[in-house]
């Protein structure tokens, strides 16, 4: 593969979006966890819950700000590096981004300042409302972004306008209630909740291992395990819903994720392990579970799932049909004031395949001149590279099940074993902290790499979407991003670790006094510190 402006722009987008996505999941989940903690504080009036709110709130703030800052990059990047994409689908894609600003981002950003600075300026309930508004704002943000992303995966409610050379919206509600977008939204926010739960669990486990801030850590674990349990189940179940949607909206992505080279008789088997070989179109050393894939993908025993070979054949047909659409488009454009109704009819018949003709633009300027070999080549291009998809998907799923197991265990210990946790389990919880980030990044990878070679599935190829820039410019900004983002990452991690080591530092006296009184009440003895053992 030659490395040109398209590949460089893709690399830049992947790096900046994956970096952005290091901060987003924690923001989504921690905003809610913090709001839950503050709710407990307002209901019970126990100062320790306020201290917990402030402590986890501080960590939330350190993370939140980088999510905000790196999010701006994303919004700029469409116009900077993908200007043809912006022109071609801005009519649909821009709307959810703008509504995200109006409905969600203003909300979270306006109130996040008050969350940190308003403790003395607001009533208790007032401040609680602010905390929830920040959480709701963050989560609505995710909704609109995923409506935009869902449209790239499953472009509904829009059609091509030959006069403006772009896609235009025909039905906003189809864009809004796109089933792919909805499934992605719930899957992604659940992933964020799991991330925050694992984070709170891990950090609290570390305190227990050290014998520090035990009261706060135990309560935090209880909240995190309950919240995490629900989220871990929902992330896996709703991920399955995403997969089910993929079966009809993006058949090629599904086939590539599963390494399904040929259509198998229904119900297809699920390949647990294997080494996909793109050249030979085979998966070596495959281990299958019979029937499973058919059930997951189609929820039936009789519907077949098309394999890669069959999908390539379909793509070839669509490319040929797209060339007709392209030809008609050229005629319509040439005589725009007086277009031939026959050409218009011809265009309308084939316009759904116009994007497939654009796949040829990689090889020649005018798709109408393409040789049969070039058509075949373009059809083969519709297959994404299989092995990275095959593997990232499986690791993500395995991690999903690991989260469920962890959360069940901690929930059980917290609820029925008097919040006593064995040391190995606490160690495991600490080591688990990076896992949700890995799973989230892999999930993003599966969704976006699996969409290749398209930016908008079946509509606009990635190769056509880029700006007319020089290699120098994009290389320059790429290097700047890498340097810049690395520095920020080191700074962020440094602060995060500093504040975790420091522990809760606000309202310390008041909370300690309350904890002491509370424990006395519980045990009926003076100076008893029953819960002060680090762990079993």
């Amino acid at each position: 593969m030659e490395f040109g402006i398209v590949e460089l722009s893709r690399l830049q987008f992947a790096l900046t979006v994956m970096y952005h996505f290091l901060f987003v999941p924690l923001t989504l989940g921690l905003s809610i966890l913090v709001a839950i903690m503050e709710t407990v504080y307002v209901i019970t009036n126990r100062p320790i819950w306020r201290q917990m709110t402030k402590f986890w709130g501080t960590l939330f703030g350190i993370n939140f700000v980088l999510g905000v800052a790196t999010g701006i990059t994303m919004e700029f990047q469409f116009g900077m590096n993908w200007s043809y994409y912006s022109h071609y689908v801005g009519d649909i894609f821009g709307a959810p981004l703008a509504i995200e600003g109006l409905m969600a981002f203003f909300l979270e950003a306006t109130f996040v300042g008050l969350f940190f600075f308003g403790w003395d300026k607001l009533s208790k309930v007032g401040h609680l409302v602010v905390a929830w508004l920040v959480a709701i704002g963050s989560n609505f943000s995710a909704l609109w972004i995923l409506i935009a992303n869902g449209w790239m995966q499953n472009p509904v409610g829009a059609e091509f306008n030959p006069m403006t050379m772009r896609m235009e919206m025909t039905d906003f509600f189809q864009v809004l209630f796109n089933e792919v977008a909805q499934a992605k939204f719930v899957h992604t926010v659940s992933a964020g909740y799991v991330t925050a739960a694992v984070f709170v669990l891990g950090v609290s486990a570390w305190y227990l291992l050290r014998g520090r801030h035990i009261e706060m850590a135990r309560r935090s674990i209880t909240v995190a395990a309950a919240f995490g349990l629900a989220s871990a189940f929902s992330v896996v179940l709703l991920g399955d819903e995403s997969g089910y949607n993929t079966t009809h909206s993006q058949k090629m992505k599904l086939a590539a994720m599963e390494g399904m080279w040929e259509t198998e008789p229904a119900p297809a088997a699920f390949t647990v392990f294997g080494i996909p070989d793109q050249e030979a179109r085979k998966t070596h050393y495959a281990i299958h579970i019979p029937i499973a894939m058919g059930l997951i993908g189609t929820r039936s025993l009789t519907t077949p799932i098309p394999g890669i070979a069959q999908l390539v054949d379909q793509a070839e047909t669509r490319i040929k049909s797209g060339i007709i659409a392209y030809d008609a488009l050229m005629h319509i454009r040439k005589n725009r004031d007086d277009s031939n109704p026959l050409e218009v009819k011809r265009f309308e018949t084939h316009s759904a395949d116009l994007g497939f003709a654009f796949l040829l633009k990689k090889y020649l300027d005018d798709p109408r001149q393409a040789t049969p070999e070039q058509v075949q080549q373009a059809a083969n291009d519709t297959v994404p590279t299989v092995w990275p998809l095959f593997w990232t998907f499986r690791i993500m799923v395995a991690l999903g099940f690991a989260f469920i197991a962890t959360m069940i265990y901690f929930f059980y210990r917290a609820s029925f074993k008097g919040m006593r946790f064995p040391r190995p389990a606490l160690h495991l919880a600490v080591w688990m902290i990076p896992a949700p980030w890995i799973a989230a990044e892999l999930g993003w990878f599966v969704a976006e790499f699996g969409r290749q070679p398209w930016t908008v599935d079946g509509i606009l190829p990635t190769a056509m979407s880029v700006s007319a820039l020089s290699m120098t410019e994009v290389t320059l900004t790429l290097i700047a991003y890498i340097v810049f983002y690395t520095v920020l990452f080191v700074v962020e991690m440094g602060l995060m670790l500093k504040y975790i080591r420091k522990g809760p530092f606000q309202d310390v006296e008041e909370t300690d006094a309350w904890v002491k009184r509370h424990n006395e009440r519980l045990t009926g003895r003076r100076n008893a510190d029953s819960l002060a053992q680090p762990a079993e």
Partner: protein
Amino acid sequence: MILHTLIDYEILRVIWWGLLGVLLIGFAVTDGFDMGVGALLPFVAKTDIERRVAINTVGPVWEGNQVWFILGGGAIFAAWPPLYAVSFSGFYLAMFVILAAFIVRPVAFKYRSKREDARWRTTWDWALFASGAIPALLFGVAVGNVIQGVPFHFTEDLHSIYEGAWYMKFIGLLDPFSILAGVVSLSMLVMHGGAWLTLKADGNVRYRARRIGSVAALIALLSYALAGVWMAFGIEGYQIIGDYVTNGPSNPLHFDVAKTASWLTAYSDRPWIAIAPLMGFVGGLLTFVGLRAGREVSTLLFSKMSILGVISSVGLTMFPFIMPSSSDPQSSLTVWNSSSSHMTLFVMLVATVIFMPMILAYTAWVYKVLWGKVTEADVTDNSNSLY
């Protein structure tokens, strides 16, 4: 869905042209004082405690203010996709610099006071200064370029191509007129930052902010006047020629455009638009007087009025042009040829009508809760929780 035909395409386009202005002005009057405070930081605050006073006047609100900028970008993307595509890729390196500033600034606010180390804090103070002053300057430079026309053209497929070598997307932008426009925007936002600090800070910070802010107000007035004279005698304007429709498909190549002697002929065609520059001048003058006299609320309001006047004067003078092309006038972007579709403009308008009043209401409420000065005592007493 046929609901969108309730409002004419042409009218929707004009409304969205107006909303683009509202967003830019909203950004300039809110985030503008954040940038102004950043640009003033090294000069109005010498000690750590003074710097924290200055920073904490904007501490709780900069994040919400910055959303005007993000929403501005989103709205251009949604309502004016060709403008978004051409300007963001055309001003590539300049955009990157602005972007870098908008990434550094939040981090600098948030992280600056999280460590005691003096070097750590000084570094972030410089970051705040640069990320306030540089974009404040570059926004004006960009406007200066747009007024003169930008060298780009569209291909038949509507790929936008920017003329010239890559480094021209930064250095090429810095011609004398555009630098003057940059001085207008920088001094205007410094003036605005000065007015904000006069209201929200006290002691030395407030005193210095008044002094420097009033100098900035004078510079803003003079450079704005100079730019007006320059436009009257030295800058060409653009106009659409031949027959055209205002509710047709958004394709710039369907229009014919030619250069004219000056943009300012707009003032003889539509004399009422003179109210915009007038507001710019009067507002600037009253801000100057207010800063000298140490008045607070009224000064900030006059400063806002000045910004409103200056920004709308640019838009009203150029109407219906949004971004003319100097190298291929036919590719110029106007209100009539570079909007989203009829339906998208309508959907976005509905969203704006629903959410904008809510945003204004809760933003006003937040400012009300935070009403009052930030003093050195506040910073010392809440050292842990403040920036």
